[in-house]
């Protein structure tokens, strides 16, 4: 190898190092390598006063979703039932989200199996809409 090509090689090498350093610094500053998170969709699973935001993909099955819920709430998959709130349809474990028209930002109700082996009714508590009025009766901020 001639010294000229060698010089060129070194130059490119240095440039690469510099680039990686800058990239690494930038990613540390922005809080980790994955500042930009790829997310196809999310659904909102609601029960009582709690809402779980779950990231998912339209090709995932309801079983996959229940698996995710299992890691969050420690309820066995068999004791979970998911119901699409818009239509009232009970979601089928083997079908995908796309199959059952569960779209981005959809609200899904979670019901759990009770002691008598039946599933409880859908129970989603809604916030009292006049919270701000009741807290501030004279209407001033």
């Amino acid at each position, binding site marked *: 190898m001639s010294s000229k090509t060698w010089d060129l090689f070194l130059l490119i090498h240095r440039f690469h190092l510099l680039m990686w350093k800058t990239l690494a610094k930038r990613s540390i500053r922005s809080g980790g390598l994955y500042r930009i*998170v790829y997310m196809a969709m999310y659904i909102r699973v609601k029960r009582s006063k709690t809402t779980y*935001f779950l990231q998912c993909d339209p090709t995932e099955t309801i079983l996959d979703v229940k698996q995710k819920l299992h890691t*969050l709430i420690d309820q066995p998959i068999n004791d979970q039932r998911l119901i699409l709130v818009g239509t009232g349809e009970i979601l089928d474990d083997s079908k995908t989200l796309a199959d059952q028209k569960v779209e981005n930002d959809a609200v899904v109700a979670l019901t759990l199996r009770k002691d008598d082996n039946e599933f409880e009714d859908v129970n989603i508590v809604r916030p009292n809409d006049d919270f701000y009025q009741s807290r501030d009766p004279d209407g001033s901020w």
Partner: protein
Amino acid sequence: MRKEDTVKLISAEGFEFVIDKRAAMVSQTIRNMLTSPGSFAEREHGEVTFPEISTTILEKICQYFYWSLQFASGKDTEFPIEPELTLELMMAANYLHT
């Protein structure tokens, strides 16, 4: 997704929203709470209570976090805001540095 990767945001009325930490960190205020060393109890329990933010607004904010991540990864949709929520939402966004 593991339980440790989520954070629970609690509204004024005690409603709970469990969201991904990466989504919550869209808010600079929450990011500081979750990442600053020691001091914040929020960091240990993975729970943040917002006695000033109503449930409707907090849910909207969580939706915004997720929308923001989707937008950053190239999904070009609009974020819908109901006119009657605008003022409260702006105040909350100001507080959260969002």
